[in-house]
């Protein structure tokens, strides 16, 4: 199994994802600099969190025009799996590989704490296949722009297609996201964007090991193909 971790100027969760995947899969992921233009034969591309290009203009806007994006789009068009976490999610919406947009938290604060997210009943996807719908995962968030916005028509499509992967608990929506959405899938289920950080709940010194379970299930599924 080959995993690529894309690194932009300002990425800051790349090492965490590296350690998480390495410890679970026993395989060493590869860091790929954003100026690369030819990346092939990866089973999974991870776009980590951070503040790429200082979040100038809009979160993820500059990164979504980096040279590597064409390769990532090619990977997506071949049905390749892509995981975008936090700023990675913002980049995936800016590239239009995922619908919607992440806007400023409605509480106007940077939020950094544990949340419980609920796995939804989704279309077939390597990111959710290993969990029964309604399973709760304890993972941290750390963002200023995590308020997921999508217009009503697009939201109906997301719901109808089973593209909502994770929701925050009812009454514990930290950032004002539409429908308590914490993560969404692409129409083919092969791309996931999520605001919470599963790579920060992987080791015993973390508050939870639920992120480890998330990566374990994902890796099992990718290895079985």
């Amino acid at each position, binding site marked *: 199994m080959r995993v690529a971790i894309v690194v932009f100027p300002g990425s800051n969760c790349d090492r965490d994802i590296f350690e998480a995947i390495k410890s679970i899969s026993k395989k060493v992921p590869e860091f790929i600099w954003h100026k690369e233009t030819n990346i092939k034969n990866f089973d999974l591309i991870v776009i980590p969190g951070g503040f790429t290009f200082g979040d100038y203009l809009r979160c993820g*806007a500059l990164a979504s025009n980096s040279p590597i994006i064409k390769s990532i789009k090619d990977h997506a068009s071949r049905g390749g799996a892509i995981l975008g976490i936090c700023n990675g999610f913002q980049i995936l*919406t*800016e590239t239009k590989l995922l619908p919607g947009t992440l*806007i*400023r938290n*409605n509480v106007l604060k940077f939020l950094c704490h544990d949340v419980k997210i609920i796995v939804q009943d989704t279309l077939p996807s390597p990111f959710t296949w290993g969990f029964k719908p309604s399973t709760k995962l304890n993972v941290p968030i750390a963002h200023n722009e995590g308020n997921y916005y999508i*217009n009503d028509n697009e939201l109906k499509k997301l719901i109808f297609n089973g593209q909502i992967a994770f929701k925050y608990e009812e009454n514990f929506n930290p950032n004002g996201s539409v429908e308590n959405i914490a993560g969404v899938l692409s129409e083919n289920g092969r791309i996931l964007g999520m605001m919470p950080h599963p790579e920060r709940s992987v080791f015993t010194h973390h508050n939870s090991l639920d992120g480890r379970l998330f990566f374990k299930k994902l890796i099992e599924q990718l290895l079985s193909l």
Partner: protein
Amino acid sequence: MIIDVTIDIFPKKEVLNPETEAVKKTLSNLGYKNIDGLVLSKQIKLSFKNLNEEDCIYQSKLMCDQFLVNTNIQDYEISVLKKD
């Protein structure tokens, strides 16, 4: 010839902008009670050379749709400022 173009980018009406709401509330707290609407916008000024006005507007529009504006959440207005 230099042509200056101004692009104003602002949140779509249907997108609740928490920054706008916070500024509005603070103005109200300061005693300004007659404010009905408030828009926080971002302005980008471009100076073009060796293009006619029509092409300047056309290119500005392309830039907005391609990169400068996220049309899911933002609208924009282009205006030509001055010609020297």
